[in-house]
């Protein structure tokens, strides 16, 4: 038990959380020293959450696609198209039809990606680079250089609504989350697997007691949190989640174990497209307008967030909660630049540096483990490691 606590708190497992805490601490101290308003004020924190919510939702499902061993560059374009479709249809057909039309559009883009990648076998990078460009082209064709607005304000109301979670409810949910974690550990799950539950439950209770103001957030923030918890639960604790990790970790072994590999990978694309569409609708609703360049380049922020969270680009590993924290780091950085009034010129430099540094750290730590393992093997004799190729194949490979 002790060693699993230690493993879940090791920098390799929880590094992104430490980085986030350190970043917030630095910004808090700096703004205090400079005599600015408290960085940790509820208003500022809610602000960061609201800014990052939509990208975080995309990062959650990007993580799912990355775990399945694929790659999706098309999310931002898909979101833009869905937002456009929603605003184009809402005044004539009403908000329900508009939302459905947008979601179907997103699902279709996801399906196109899925079929091309999984059934035709085209490289996922190329396919989604293609859909990124083509779907953006469709947006530009529909909008023809203009930005559009809708008179129906349902989407605007939804995207800017502030929902409050009653304190009592928050405490109950927090207790339930922790109770769930306890039950799971009792039934054999590891601390590592339930770390997110412990953390979320504790955070919720602490907020309810000490910062009740933080229980009022915009609708996108709540949607993001619910989706994050749901997705994390599905990935961690269901057969579907387990199989998804297997599909990404070793597709051939998964296939020969009787898992429908293609189906899992395709569903990941379609879900990702649908969720991107929902994000697009919320984004369009925020200002009740879209223009042809909306969310351009957003896919890179999303992938950066997932990579910051330690998601492997080769599939089979990744955590939803960490990708959300990765998103928060990126938005905290830009928010910090604004608060400290440093100017945005160096923002990209810093964000890029942080990303590369994080990726280097992940690679270096896992590489060290691998080397140590190889050394240990060389000391032992005889029986080759499971991964070593049989002697005969060395010659021909």
């Amino acid at each position, binding site marked *: 038990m002790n060693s699993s606590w230690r493993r879940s708190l090791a920098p390799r497992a929880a590094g992104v959380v430490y980085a986030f805490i350190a970043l917030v601490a630095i910004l808090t101290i700096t703004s205090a020293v400079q005599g600015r308003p408290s960085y940790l004020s509820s208003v500022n924190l809610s602000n960061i959450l609201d800014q990052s919510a939509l990208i975080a939702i995309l990062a959650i499902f990007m993580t799912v696609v990355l775990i399945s061993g694929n790659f999706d560059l098309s999310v931002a374009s898909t979101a833009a198209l869905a937002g456009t479709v929603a605003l184009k249809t809402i005044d004539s057909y009403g908000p329900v039809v508009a939302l459905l039309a947008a979601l179907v559009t997103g699902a279709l883009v996801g399906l196109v990606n899925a079929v091309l990648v999984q059934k035709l076998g085209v490289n996922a990078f190329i396919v989604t680079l293609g859909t990124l460009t083509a779907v953006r082209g469709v947006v530009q064709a529909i909008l023809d250089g203009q930005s559009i607005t809708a008179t129906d304000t349902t989407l605007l109301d939804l995207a800017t609504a502030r929902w409050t979670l009653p304190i009592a409810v928050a405490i109950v949910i927090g207790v339930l989350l922790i109770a769930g974690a306890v039950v*799971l550990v009792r*039934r*054999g*799950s*590891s601390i590592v697997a339930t770390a997110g539950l412990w953390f979320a439950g504790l955070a919720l209770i602490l907020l309810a007691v000490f910062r009740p103001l933080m229980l009022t957030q915009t609708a996108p923030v709540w949607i993001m949190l619910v989706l994050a918890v749901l997705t994390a639960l599905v990935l961690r*604790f*269901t*057969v*579907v989640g*387990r*199989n998804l990790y*297997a599909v990404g*970790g*070793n597709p*051939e*072994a*998964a*296939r*020969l*174990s*009787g*898992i*429908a590999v293609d189906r899992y990978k395709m569903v990941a694309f379609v879900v990702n497209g649908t969720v991107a569409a929902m994000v697009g609708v919320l984004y369009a609703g925020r200002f009740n307008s879209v223009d042809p360049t909306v969310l351009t380049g957003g896919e890179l922020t999303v992938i950066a967030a997932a990579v910051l969270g330690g998601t492997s680009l080769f599939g*089979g*590993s990744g955590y939803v909660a960490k990708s959300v924290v990765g998103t928060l780091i990126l938005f905290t950085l830009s928010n910090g630049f604004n608060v400290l009034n440093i100017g945005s010129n160096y923002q990209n430099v810093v964000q890029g540096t942080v990303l590369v540094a994080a990726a280097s750290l992940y690679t270096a730590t896992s590489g060290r483990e691998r080397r140590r*393992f190889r050394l240990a093997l060389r000391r032992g*004799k*005889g*029986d*080759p*490691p*499971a*991964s*070593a190729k*049989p*002697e*005969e194949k*060395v*010659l*021909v490979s």
Partner: protein
Amino acid sequence: MVTSPVLAVRDVEKTYTSGTRALRGVSMRVQPGTVHGLIGANGAGKSTLIKILSGWQQASAGTVEWKGEPVDWSQPGQALEAGMAAVHQHTPLVDAMTVVENVFLGRRETKRWDAAARRTELLALCERVGYELNPDELVSELSVGARQMVAILQALARDPDVVLLDEPTAALSPAEREVLFRSVRRLRDAGTTFVYTSHFLDEVMALTDHLTVLRDGLVVVDSPTADVTVESLVTAIVGKRLARLEAAAPAARAVGAPVLRVRGLASPGHFGPVDLTVHEGEVVGLAGLLGSGRTELLEAIYRADPASTGEVRVDDISVRHSPRAAVRAGLALVPEDRARQGFIRDWEIWRNISLPYLSGMSWRRLLPQAVREKQLALKAVDDLGIVAGSADSPVGELSGGNAQKVVFAKWVYGPARVLLLDEPSAGVDVGAKADILQLVRRLADDGRGVLMVSSEFEELLTACDRILVIRRGEIVADLTAADTDLHEVTALASGLKEGLPA
């Protein structure tokens, strides 16, 4: 005839760092202008000797002499420079380049790429070999046999004195084999020397002038091919192990109803229509050499080969065309390449073991119950003697034998009716091998059917009730293990003896 050998090895020994003695003092003299056969069973030291000859590895003791001079090649490039070209079973070619570009790849006597001169040279080379190739065709569009010929042309383009052919026919069709043999004879008559290794003894007998047979790191036969009989050759290869194994052959036991029936299963280019039946409580061996189609057959039975045609029935219910359907129907596959196909490296033992039947270990088939998974893993660790820190150890950190036991454990506690085992004991030490063979026996005694592929025929003779011999994609014999011996199986699998189609 007294000629000095172009290539000679004298008292060569090779001991690996792991302590394995692959060669224990091997001497061999290759005369110019001959085809010199180098044969031996798996583990006889053949591969090691080839690696030393072609400069991939260095001998621990003894000398290699090239045209009378001792040499000490430490890189393949040096051997090539001296005039010794090697063609392996899968020589890497650049798919995106044409035949002529591949043949002259890496030659740099001139800086300029003189396309016309190269084409002329290639055509002359083809003429010499007696094989037609379109110089401008992309290598990716060639058949396996034609690719092999490109690899051979690539070797010949350097005008070598000795060409080392390592299992060149494993992937070839009979017609392509004939072309290759014609070319080899033609070039030999023109003065090129060949060192030729093959599992197919009929080829070796037909093609070579001189034979060196290795067994357990020693030379057991070294004489002109004409002086060797088929009988003595098989005995030389399998050695004294024969007697011991005949004694160990299991008594025939009663078997139950048919559990696996395969009818007309074929995969173009890999194996022809195959019929076979496995009964409850029966271990059936599939004896075949590398490239005989044995692995492909097993994968097709498991429905993992989308190009295959024919019918697979388990308990008389036809199995649809996917591994998923196969698992549901009661088939299980322990694959040949376990690291690539068998397990997930970073996953713990317990998560790997529960993978195929995870729903069965889950609450309402939806939420996996880690307690049950871990209990099963502990049981497996205990039953199968898996040596690991704990059931939480990642499988990638286990030794080959223990990882293989994990792959077995995935299936043995489930409802599988038929286990398909592909080289279940390859790369496994002796102790683990015995454990695994015992496990196979136990599985059959539980009333399941087992179909097992192995290139170590001794193993099949000990573990199986019945042995099917597969050669070049066809089942050529159906033998009762008790009524046959290593001699017969080796002869059938290597083509020295014609079997009656089963």
